[in-house]
């Protein structure tokens, strides 16, 4: 935990290397998140999804990226060119910059400032500017309606989101992202179990913040064609696209860091569960085995040669990674990042799953849900959480017990609110 001044004193090269690693990894994750979404949705919907580019369509993200880059870049007539250009840049910058404050492992993060969480919220809240400016600059009805919707939605749900974060801060007693993870290690429990209601609110608000189904109104294709980015094409569109998926990863990372113990492995304090540290080996081993199995069942023939070769290389790579992970120092070093990413993927999977399952809310329903249910519930939750903490500090009650009582009381309020709504 450092103040920003001290970070300026650090050697720049080290910081730059970290930035480079984080953002390369992030770009890859985002690219393959799109691929994963297409594949998972396809399997939910009894179809195959991308299968052509590379084995099982593994190179599809790259092909898509190239396609978007090579497409004609259209700027609508009457658009405000400068703002039209600026908007996607703002959005993408906002969602990528915030990652510099996320701790991926115990000692791997770009920075860890003492008000880290505040900065994550601050930076990610800049993204809405890009959306509203993009919608306005397009000089068209659908984007403007999309931008207005989007802004109202983001601003509303940000309130609930922030309140949900506050209860995690109350439990941790620090704003530093890494400090929050360490607090969970110390207290021996993930905050999701101490504050289930806050976790739920955060989850729902996160879906709304990233414009995902069932809250994907700003870009509801059946109503507003494509919402704020209707008029965008080619490279600029890909920036918006990238920003959206990066934002998904970002909110998942925040939720994981605050409520699911960040880079901690499950039950970090339970000795006999130590074998869990071999999970990365198992995962990579399984991936390698699957690749080899597919390799032998893959159609042979000249047109499949490169695909088979790639599958073989992937299998070999995964197997090599699994073997390498058996070496203790590597295993220890990989733990943090592995568990962090695993939890983030779990979150992202839920996002995709929802998209395959739910219809879409109507705008007024969405706002009513936000203002009449989520925000009051979030406020009540923070109050009860505070009461629970005071009970344990001042009266010496058992901390977990008092917090669970607080959550129970919040759930009662939630039930009441839900009954009022219907």
């Amino acid at each position: 935990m450092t103040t920003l001044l001290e970070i300026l004193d650090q050697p720049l090269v080290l910081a730059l290397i970290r930035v480079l690693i984080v953002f390369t990894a992030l770009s890859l994750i985002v690219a393959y998140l799109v691929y994963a979404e297409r594949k998972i949705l396809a399997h939910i919907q009894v179809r195959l999804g991308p299968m052509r580019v590379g084995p099982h369509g593994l190179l599809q993200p790259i092909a898509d990226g190239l396609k978007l880059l090579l497409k004609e870049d259209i700027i609508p007539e009457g658009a405000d060119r400068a703002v039209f250009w600026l908007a996607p840049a703002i959005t993408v910058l906002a969602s990528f910059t915030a990652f510099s404050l996320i701790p991926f492992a115990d000692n791997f993060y770009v920075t860890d400032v003492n008000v880290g969480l505040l900065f994550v919220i601050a930076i990610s809240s800049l993204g809405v500017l890009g959306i509203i400016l993009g919608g306005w600059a397009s000089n068209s009805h659908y984007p403007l309606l999309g931008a207005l919707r989007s802004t109202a939605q983001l601003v509303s749900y940000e309130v609930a989101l922030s309140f949900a974060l506050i209860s995690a801060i109350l439990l941790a007693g620090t704003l530093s992202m890494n400090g929050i993870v360490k607090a969970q290690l110390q207290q021996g429990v993930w905050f999701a179990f101490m504050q289930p209601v806050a976790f739920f609110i955060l989850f729902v608000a996160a879906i709304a913040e990233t414009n995902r189904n069932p809250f994907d109104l700003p870009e509801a294709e059946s109503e507003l064609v494509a919402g704020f980015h209707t008029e965008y094409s080619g490279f600029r569109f890909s920036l918006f696209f990238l920003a959206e998926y990066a934002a998904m990863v970002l909110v998942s990372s925040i939720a994981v860091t605050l409520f699911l113990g960040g880079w901690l492995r499950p039950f970090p304090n339970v000795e006999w569960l130590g074998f869990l540290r071999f999970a990365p080996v198992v995962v990579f081993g399984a991936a390698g085995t699957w690749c080899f199995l597919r390799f032998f069942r893959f159609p042979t023939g000249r047109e499949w040669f490169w695909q088979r070769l790639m599958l073989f290389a992937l299998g070999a790579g995964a197997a090599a990674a699994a073997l390498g992970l058996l070496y203790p120092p590597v295993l220890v070093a990989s733990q943090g990042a592995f568990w962090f990413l695993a939890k983030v993927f779990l979150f992202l999977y839920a996002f995709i799953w929802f998209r395959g399952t739910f219809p879409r809310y109507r705008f007024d329903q969405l706002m009513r849900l936000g203002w009449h249910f989520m925000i009051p519930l979030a406020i009540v939750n923070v109050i009860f959480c505070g009461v629970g903490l005071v009970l344990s500090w001042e009266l010496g009650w058992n901390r977990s017990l008092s917090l669970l009582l607080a959550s129970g009381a919040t759930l009662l309020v939630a039930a009441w609110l839900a009954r009022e709504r219907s």
Partner: protein
Amino acid sequence: MGQTPSVSTTILGADEVILNMGPQHPSTHGVLRVKLKLDGEKVISSECIIGYLHRGVEKIGETRTYAQFAPYVDRTDYVAAVSNGLGYCEAVEKLLGAEAPPRARWVRTILTELQRIASHLLWLGTHALDIGAMTPVFYCFREREEILKIFEKYCGARLTTHAFRIGGLLYETYDGFEEDVKKFCHDFLSRVDEYEELLTENRIWIQRTRGVGILTADDAIAMGASGPVLRGSGVKWDIRRAFPYAAYDQFEFDIPVGENGDTYDRYLVRMQEMRQSHRIVLQAIDSIPSGPIAARIGKVLKPPPGEVYHSIEAPKGELGYYIVSDGSTQPYRLRIRPPSFVNLQVLDQMIRGLLIADVVAVIGTLDIVLGEVDR
């Protein structure tokens, strides 16, 4: 400079926005153009502008012989071609005073009911997609594909089938027809349950459809609405029961009706109709009689002068054919009463005061096909 497109709403005392929805819009089901007058996102009034798919089908009918025109009707409601064909063939048969033999009537009933299921499946998928649920459409297409395969095996075409001929059928059923249909029926009910699991009890689905686009029974009758749109409003009216045609008088089936006339009720009605169609198909396939498949009506059709109106219960509502004969080989006048066109009339009334998102839901619930609206 970016000129702000004026979204000044009447909240701000400024003018309303005119928003053109379509003719190129993801959810106007073709080339429908709805000119919406908006207050913010609220619809003040609307105007349907149609004709982007007008091909003059009725006029073409006057320049073709009766038999030649039969393929054209497939292209009006192109997602329920079999039903169109049935209506046309029966209308001409009525004009001729002929009747198809029982076996032909049974096969016609089976195929038409399968077509009803296929049409409703397409409606369900796209309707759900409009409301934002993207998965049902793929499930629906899976089952629709089975039906289209049966059509293809029967007559070689999947979409514009031209399955029937005036006086009966051209083709005898293929070997394995009954097994195919039974196999489809065997799975189908569980598949409908699967769709209903995704939607019927879903809170969001209910919120999006219940109380949206309400059409009272009186209004529905006054506007001439028919089919599920009419039945969703609680009017128990089904031509299959009121004026039985084909072999419908032989089978038992219920007529599902709604209560409130909202989008949710119409959804439930159509889901029930699929189950009822399944019931009819099962009954028909078990009792299919043997015998000739076509009546002897001669090669050159020259109906006696006169006029006839014959309507059937197409998937979308009352599909009527009004034919005037002058005794020649071609109709003197041919008029199609398409259900989509008439049902589309109620759109404006249903969407006033609702939001843009509801407009999409209501267009979906009307289940229109622009080929039929414009003809």
